[in-house]
């Protein structure tokens, strides 16, 4: 029926078997039923959200206050919400992978090979592009402008467009669960396997377009952040006075600007191969997949530092704050950050030592790889010396920082092993490698993001997160990590290949069981995090810190209310040192009201972002399914939107001085009424957001 008349033109290559429900109906195996269940979950989730918003009558609020908002703080929060949603999905997928591998020792297990391949491909793609990237971009979005004393980023509209491109791409990932299938080529999508000759289905196309949309969004984000840091700093905020988190944001942005285009080129050329029959990476007619490997890792290695550097920034803030001490070796840390950013472009070949290039090349790239260990080690010691002669408080963010320092060193240990080409030959493509990069990214990214989440949450929402559930979650993340990934080192050393759906040797069984238990503990960790959020919201009145400074903070971001007003600062601050707020509290009264207030101009909300993101995702969907009409309409609609927006003139809103004054007075009154908190009791309800200062 669907192959006749106009249907092929309208629906492209869609047919009923693209729906997992139909597949599960016709072939009710465990694997297909899991697939249909996942699709159902996505649909139910979407329906529940829609119904809930409708019943609460929140559509208008959501649209005008959040979805179309150009406020960097709201955009940051939306990014992090997206990150948590995607983290939940990808973590469940990780558990399925672990369960399958534990079950499939000398038998078929419960997930079919094709399905298993989709699982590891979505797990990797989501964790990198739609969990890690949104999380760090969201955190930078929220914190960095506050830290440099700015009212917004340099290009607020572009910020919203980036968010929506990322969101649209993540949406495409979710749609791939319900309609069609995802790529089986892993997160790196190596051709020629992902070429039409070997993977004719829609899977690789979903991967290509989701990643391409995401990478364009990230490039734009990088441009936006870099310009913000260079151009929007408040008076006195010289480069060498910037908080370390701003430095790492800057380095990450620079890496995004230069590295993301390589990914865009790699996926675009692969798309040309698949859609127009070009021969970049095909086996035949002069294609060469080695060029893909180079392009992909030219992006892929800097990407590792795009992910890790912001976390390094968070640790720098957290360790200094919770040790009540100036950061040790500020200049050293800045130099080390820059060195890491630069070196990250010189090591990409270590991702394919085994491709047959000569020993000289491998050795040069191996040594370059080891060299990165030096600035990284320096950073860790700088944090240790920051705690030295300080007063360390073991709050949740600090616990994450300590766990990071010790765990990350182990990852570095195995990283140096892998930097030796002769050793890499033995464990490349095995679970050893999988263990290694999880060993880098879980402490080096996830712990950092979670530390930042706990640290700045009170700033963003005006109340502290529950301490007990935070610790439970922390314990699960750490214990779970060790139990889930240490066994993989052993298995990898024994030659178990990654991405393996089944094993044949019972000797592996205990280690896979152990790793499976670890994965479940990690799920418990995420669960505890959600419980924590729930509990914290319920007891938010008891833990309010509207005054804005729950941790005796050091940077500017703590010098305004929690949550900050839309314009961040009633008057643009002036900075005299590296810890401006901390020093101001000890020198004079940082809460003294200014003589007068000026009107403040900020950009108005705009629907351009949602428009471009949603239409962009629809265009990509049309490309995946060969619904050319949708693609053409989508491209034209995007161009029209951009042109129309360039004609818009009244794009600013004004906050009159009276309103600013009222808001500011209300906050200053709360500050005056709050009892200053000593550090011993900052984790209790006594904490109202004003720090007790002893000089």
């Amino acid at each position: 029926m669907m192959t006749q008349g106009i249907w092929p033109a309208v629906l492209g290559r869609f047919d009923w078997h693209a729906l997992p429900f139909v597949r599960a109906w016709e072939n009710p195996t465990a694997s297909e039923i899991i697939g249909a269940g996942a699709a159902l979950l996505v649909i139910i989730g979407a329906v529940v959200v829609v119904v809930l918003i409708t019943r609460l009558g929140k559509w208008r609020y959501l649209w005008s206050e959040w979805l179309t908002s150009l406020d960097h703080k709201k955009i940051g929060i939306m990014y992090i919400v997206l990150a948590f949603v995607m983290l939940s999905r990808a973590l469940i997928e990780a558990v399925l992978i672990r369960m399958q591998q534990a079950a499939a020792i000398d038998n078929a297990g419960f997930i079919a090979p094709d399905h298993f391949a989709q699982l590891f491909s979505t797990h990797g793609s989501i964790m990198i592009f739609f969990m890690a990237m949104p999380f760090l971009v969201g955190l930078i979005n929220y914190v960095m402008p506050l830290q440099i004393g700015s009212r917004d980023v340099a290009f607020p509209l572009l910020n919203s467009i980036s968010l929506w491109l990322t969101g649209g791409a993540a949406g495409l990932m979710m749609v791939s669960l319900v309609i069609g299938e995802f790529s089986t080529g892993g997160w790196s999508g190596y051709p020629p396997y992902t070429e039409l000759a070997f993977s004719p289905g829609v899977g690789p196309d979903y991967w290509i377009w989701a990643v391409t949309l995401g990478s364009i969004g990230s490039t734009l984000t990088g441009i936006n952040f870099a310009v913000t840091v260079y151009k929007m700093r408040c008076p006195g905020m010289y480069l060498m006075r910037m908080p370390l988190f701003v430095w790492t944001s800057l380095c990450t942005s620079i890496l995004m600007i230069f590295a993301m285009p390589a990914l865009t080129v790699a996926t675009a050329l692969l798309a040309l191969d698949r859609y127009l029959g070009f021969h970049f990476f095909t086996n035949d007619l002069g294609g060469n997949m080695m060029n893909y490997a180079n392009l992909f890792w030219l992006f892929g290695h800097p990407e590792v530092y795009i992910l890790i550097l912001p976390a390094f920034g968070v640790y720098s803030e957290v360790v200094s704050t919770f040790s009540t001490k100036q950061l040790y070796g500020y200049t050293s840390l800045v130099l080390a950050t820059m060195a890491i950013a630069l070196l990250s472009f010189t090591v990409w070949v270590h991702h394919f030592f085994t491709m047959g290039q000569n020993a000289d090349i491998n050795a040069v790239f191996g040594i370059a790889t080891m060299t990165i260990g030096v600035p990284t080690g320096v950073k860790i010691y700088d944090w240790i010396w920051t705690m030295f002669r300080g007063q360390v408080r073991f709050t949740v963010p600090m616990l994450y920082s300590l766990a990071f320092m010790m765990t990350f060193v182990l990852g570095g240990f195995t990283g140096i092993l892998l930097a030796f080409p002769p050793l890499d030959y033995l464990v490349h493509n095995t679970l050893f490698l999988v263990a290694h990069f999880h060993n880098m990214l879980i402490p080096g990214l996830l712990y950092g993001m979670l530390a930042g989440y706990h640290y700045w949450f009170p700033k963003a929402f005006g109340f502290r997160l529950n301490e007990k559930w935070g610790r439970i979650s922390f314990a699960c993340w750490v214990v779970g990590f060790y139990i889930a990934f240490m066994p993989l080192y052993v298995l990898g050393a024994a030659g178990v290949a990654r991405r393996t759906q089944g094993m044949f040797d019972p000797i592996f069984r205990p280690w896979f069981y152990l790793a499976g238990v670890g994965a479940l503990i990690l799920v418990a960790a995420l669960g505890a995090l959600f419980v924590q959020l729930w509990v914290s919201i319920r007891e938010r009145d008891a833990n309010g810190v509207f005054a804005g400074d729950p941790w005796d903070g050091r940077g500017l971001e703590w010098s305004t209310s929690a949550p900050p007003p839309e314009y961040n600062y009633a008057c643009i601050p002036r900075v005299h040192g590296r810890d401006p707020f901390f020093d101001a509290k000890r020198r004079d009264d940082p809460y003294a009201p200014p003589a007068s207030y000026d009107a403040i101009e900020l950009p108005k909300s705009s629907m351009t972002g949602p428009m471009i993101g949603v239409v962009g995702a629809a265009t990509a969907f049309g490309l995946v399914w060969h619904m050319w009409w949708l693609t053409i309409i989508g491209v034209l609609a995007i161009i029209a939107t951009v042109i129309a927006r360039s004609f818009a003139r009244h794009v600013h809103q004004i906050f009159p001085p009276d309103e600013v004054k009222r808001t500011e007075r209300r906050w200053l009154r709360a500050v005056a009424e709050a009892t200053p908190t000593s550090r011993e009791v900052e984790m209790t309800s006594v904490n109202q957001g004003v720090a007790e200062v002893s000089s």
Partner: protein
Amino acid sequence: MKVSRGRPLLFAIPLLFVLSGCDVLKLSVMNYAGPIAASQSHLYVIVGIVLVFVAGPVLLLTPLIAWHYRLSNKNSAFRPNWNFSWTLEGFIWIPPIGIVIGLGFVLWHYTHTLDPYRPIASNLPALKVQAVGLDWKWLFIYPDQRIAAVNQLFIPVGRPVHISLTSGTVMQALLIPQLAGQIYAMAGMTTQLNLAASRPGVYRGENTQFNGTGFQNEKFNVIALSPSDYDRWVEHARASAHPLDAAAYAELFRKSSPPQPIVFSSVPQRLFQNILVQSQEPR
């Protein structure tokens, strides 16, 4: 009573676990069976020992300093404005740089001596093998003996083996942990791997690069035999009267995982070269 009975079990489980766990490593390079893997294994130990001294201080200092300088310890010093010391700075920059320079020399040396393309020095001429990665099996061609085997690689102990690799399909990677590291096999291109077995035995080999739904089945055994046993196997293979003819060849190129290893008594001339050319032609 229950507690005391439970206790031995409580210790027994981890103990059993460790014992059975260590068993796994007999499949790894730690249980090496050839000169290349032996060197690699030694290199692991050397680098590992150096790295203990790199990671050790962090693992010790982090908890010690954090705990000693905890807020509730009123006996520890507190210098909130202390933020720099040239001595410490030298301590955190210079030794790591020194270690990296030292390891750099080690790396340069071993990367060259353990280069998979480097022939293994020996009085005996190397046995030539051509390996072709297919979906989802390995075809090993012995060009000089004019025989071939699928998912089974027989080699003589004590004689170097030189493997030329290519792929008849997508990219694959050949790994035999107890003998040598891996190298990619790519269509239209040849890569090389040199290895040797120093004792008879059966060693696991596999493709480690995901290549589709039969990937998990793409394993094979490397069977190292004494030279005389090996010669006997060659004779046996030739006598099997199962040539790699056009029909067998077409069957091999079909996507499948053969349940049993296959031995071919004869092989067309220049098969490997033909596969190289063929994979670059339009489909």
